[in-house]
């Protein structure tokens, strides 16, 4: 089974890098084509958030800001538990082409392996919850 770790797309856009940059890195731009509501603190380590009418939302952590050529952020991998630390990294690269822009987006990290360390931590959590709940029941029984 081929397991994609990396998604890469390049598009040629008939607008200058400054316009594309604004669309990628401002709340106004992001909310016009990506989320339906967006906020962003555009600095490395800053956080961003997008929301959709469905109620779905995505938290981003800004990693690279090199106006107007590189914008990178990480976000949570869908489907994993909220507190799962694994994230994918998304990087947009803007390259001027005449009057337009060649925009490349690369998202990496889908194939982060379920490492033994993580697996044991996760299983540990699962067992931990079971025993915590057991202890709670015992405590309540004893208190009754």
């Amino acid at each position, binding site marked *: 089974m081929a*397991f*994609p770790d990396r998604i890469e*797309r390049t598009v040629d856009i008939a607008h200058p890098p400054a316009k594309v940059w604004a*669309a990628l890195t401002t709340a106004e731009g992001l909310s016009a084509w990506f989320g339906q509501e967006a906020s962003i603190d555009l600095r490395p380590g800053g956080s961003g958030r997008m929301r959709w009418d*469905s109620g779905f939302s995505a938290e981003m952590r800004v990693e690279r800001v090199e106006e107007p050529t590189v914008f990178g952020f990480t976000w949570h991998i*869908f489907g994993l538990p909220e507190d799962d630390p694994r994230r994918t990294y998304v990087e947009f690269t803007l390259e001027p082409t005449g009057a337009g822009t060649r925009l490349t987006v690369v998202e990496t990290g889908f*194939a982060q392996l*379920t490492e033994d360390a993580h697996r044991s931590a*996760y*299983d540990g959590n699962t067992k931990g919850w079971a025993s915590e709940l057991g202890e709670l029941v015992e405590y309540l029984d004893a208190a009754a």
Partner: protein
Amino acid sequence: MLQPDVEAAAEKVFAALADPTRRAILSALASGGPATATDLAGRLPITRQAIAKHLALLTEAGLVLAEPGERRRVRYRLRSAPMQVAQQFLAALARDWDGQLGALKDYLDQQASGSVQERDNRWLTYSPGARARRRSCCRRRSGSPRHAGQPRPG
């Protein structure tokens, strides 16, 4: 490339999920917590024998853990670690950059031409169910609440 054990884990998850009875058993364990084969037979329209057979396969695949329960009955508990491998695979397939980049181009074109059109929100995200619904449903460009049924993750 994937390590063989990870690939094997993903294969077992997808094989397990390919069967409706096993999906029903996993759903029951996910929603109701650990249960014995007898418990499950009482909740699902499946014989205890068939359930026991599927539970053995699910245990072999590492998707459920057999543990001692009351009155010396074996109780089965969902084990979700292998599912995460499959989830990451699905997350990569469901990421719709083609749709998003198309929306970005449309937005920039509209901005340049000064026209204001209602946006087709193409963010189908991650949810295979949402993608399937979109494909089978409408491709209207109006602002209908077509995403209303999209499940939240987690």
